[in-house]
């Protein structure tokens, strides 16, 4: 068994990295953007 002080197993690193990537993606998609209130009046 690996000692705890060696850090997470490689699989744990992959899962953690995937979670980070998904969290960053969610942050980007949910990030507020400039609010456009423009009503097209062409018709």
């Amino acid at each position, binding site marked *: 068994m690996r000692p705890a002080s060696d*850090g*997470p197993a490689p699989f744990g690193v*992959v899962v953690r990295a995937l979670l980070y990537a998904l969290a960053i*993606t969610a942050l980007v998609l949910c990030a507020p*953007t*400039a609010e456009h209130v*423009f*009503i097209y*009046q062409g018709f």
Partner: protein
Amino acid sequence: MRTSAPAARPITWALAALFLVFIDLGITRSRLLWGPTAFENTRNMTQIVFAQTYQAARKLYTTHRGPERRIAVLGNSRILLGAREPLLQPELDHLAPGLRAVNLGIFGAGIGDQEAVLRHLPRLAPSLVILTLGASDLQGTPASPLSGQPAEMLRIGWAGVDPEGAAERVDRWVRTLWALYGFREFARAALVDRVAPPPDPGPPPDHFPSTRALFDHIHGGSGAAVEAAYRAWRREPTLEAFIAYLEIGSPSYLDLVRQRASGPSVDEDSRGVRLLDAVLARLAAGPWRSLVVIMPENPLIELDTGNRYHRPGLSDDAAAIVRGLAARRGIPVVDARRWMPAEAFVDFDHLMTDLSGFQRPLAAEIVRASGV
């Protein structure tokens, strides 16, 4: 000895970056982002510019690079309605097979919005780019701004054209480098659409057999009343009768026209003219032929002797500036302002989709400019 915490280990972040690349590609190069959506067919005038900007972006990033020569047509509602692809493409096929029209028109798009669209054009790799614009597109008013939502959604590149703050500059740089960030507004709308699609009215019909069918499509339940007013104008073709017809179906459009009539003039120092010059510079620098088309104007406006619906001299001043700036860049200009009769128009600016027949002379100009 204790190693660094997992969150701080470089391998974790390197892997996260790798995963981000795959997630980015999985969203921005797939039907998840670019597949058909319900929101893009909205009839809601507060959402239609966003929806059409999304459609233009889809055409830029997903149009198949087949053996045809792609013809990119930039503009706003004037060209989107006047030469929709299902109308323009058959004319091109008839005159010169092998040309493919890609109409990138967006309702309300000003000349600053065209500058933003142009930054994405290398992705489409067109052989000919046609910039269509109306004389009043250089003016800029609250109802028809020079730069609006399309410029905001499509802003990429290392240098901007207008003065901007640090936050805007960084935002543009990140949009340039990171597709998911650049298309995040579209991705968000597309994902919501996949999960909970709104009611889908579907795309507009390809053809309209009559003005009544067109008015029913544009005005819904009041189509019959608009048609009656339009017929009254056809029987008595005065400016007053035309305004009465517009007041029934398009009162907000009349507000827009009145804003333009009392709006600023256009001269060499106008922001709209500076933006036009930036557009022409970008056109001239690209690996494509270019053509500027000044779009048809309703000749009925000449009856507006009280100048309530147009600014006198603006059209000629703007056309002269367009010709002068384009000549400096070696870009030909087609002045189509007098091409169409009053009955070809829905209002002072917009041609009757399909019924006007504008797609035919435009196709002839495209073939001429494409050199086939």
